[in-house]
């Protein structure tokens, strides 16, 4: 996955992501594609959650999947969830949960609960940094005010790191793939460098759906695992989703 929160010259925030999923889950030798990824793409739907006849929040879901991996609460905040690979991963948390230790939240249920209960960026950040969860993940959060953008690196039981957008230092975006921001990504999967190169190339002046879509459409940020690209603008409550395809030659991840 690749998630980006960026702001333009006026401090208007944009949040976008590629959702990549299906690694090592069946390789179609004939078509050179990941099987599960191919099955997931037709399941992509936009969901408008309503309460009292009004929009409470919006998300991009796979039909049949009730957690929230990409969501926007209009005029409040945006969240995306990226996988964080770890040997002490979700498998361990799930086993503990099955064995009866149920104090932890499922990671994508927590994001839905946050969408439901929190009403501001600060409240969302508080919940996403403090609650116990079942799997290590990255929560990427955007708000409505200038500078409200952060990557929350979570261990199952504790907060590992918060990388907030430091606008006083001239930062205008935060970007997360699937590796800790304080380490170098592995040489065989350095989407971070490519995405950053393209963000820096387009520049702060050009920030908007078109420029961020271009970044997320550049290989290998776009790759054979990419199921969809979502673009969100919190003030307008806009959510645009595009089911993706990566023409050959395209890297498998």
């Amino acid at each position, binding site marked *: 996955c690749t998630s980006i929160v960026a702001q333009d010259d006026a401090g208007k925030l944009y949040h976008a992501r590629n959702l990549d999923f299906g690694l090592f889950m069946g390789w179609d030798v004939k078509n050179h594609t990941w*099987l599960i990824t191919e099955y997931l793409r037709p*399941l992509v739907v936009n969901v408008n959650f309503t309460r009292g006849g009004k929009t409470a929040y919006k998300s991009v879901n796979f039909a049949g999947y009730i957690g929230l991996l990409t969501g926007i609460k209009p005029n409040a905040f945006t969240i995306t969830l990226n996988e964080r690979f770890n040997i002490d991963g979700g498998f361990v948390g799930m086993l503990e949960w099955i064995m009866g230790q149920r104090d932890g939240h499922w990671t994508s249920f927590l994001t839905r609960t946050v969408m439901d209960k929190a009403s501001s960026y600060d409240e969302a950040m508080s919940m996403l940094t403090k609650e116990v969860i079942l799997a290590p993940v990255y929560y990427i959060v955007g708000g409505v005010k200038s500078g409200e953008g952060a990557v929350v690196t979570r261990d199952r039981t504790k907060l590992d790191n918060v990388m907030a957008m430091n606008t006083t230092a001239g930062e205008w975006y935060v970007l997360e793939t699937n590796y800790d921001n304080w380490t170098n990504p592995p040489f065989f999967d350095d989407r971070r460098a490519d995405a950053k190169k393209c963000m820096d190339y387009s520049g702060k002046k050009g920030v908007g759906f078109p420029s961020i879509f271009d970044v997320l459409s550049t290989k290998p940020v776009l790759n054979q695992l990419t199921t969809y690209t979502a673009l969100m603008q919190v003030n307008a409550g806009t959510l645009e989703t595009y089911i993706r395809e990566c023409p050959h030659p395209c890297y498998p991840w």
Partner: protein
Amino acid sequence: QVLPPYTEDCQHGMYANHARCAGMPPTFEVNLDQDPSVRWNGVVQHKKKELVAMIGQIKLLVGAISPKIITAVDQYLPELIQKLPEPYGAEIQGIAKASGLPDGEILLFNIFYEIFTV
């Protein structure tokens, strides 16, 4: 770069013509005022065929590791649904009922993202 990892120059003008896209997904309303067991019915009715195909593929992959896992999924996972916080347990049961798939297999789909962080 025509050799792996197939990097390329930063792209331009992709948004205007929706390049490298296979389309835009449909939008559904999920009414939170409705009972959790029926609120996803609209989504499932439209995507039932695709959901059944997806679960079938997951079962093939998991079954290739060990067919016993699928037996365990059908036997034990439904019990765990009762332990999920509301409204999530009822939502999973509702999706299973609307799709005609076993409760445990819908739960399996829902825990996939959680498990594969390993």
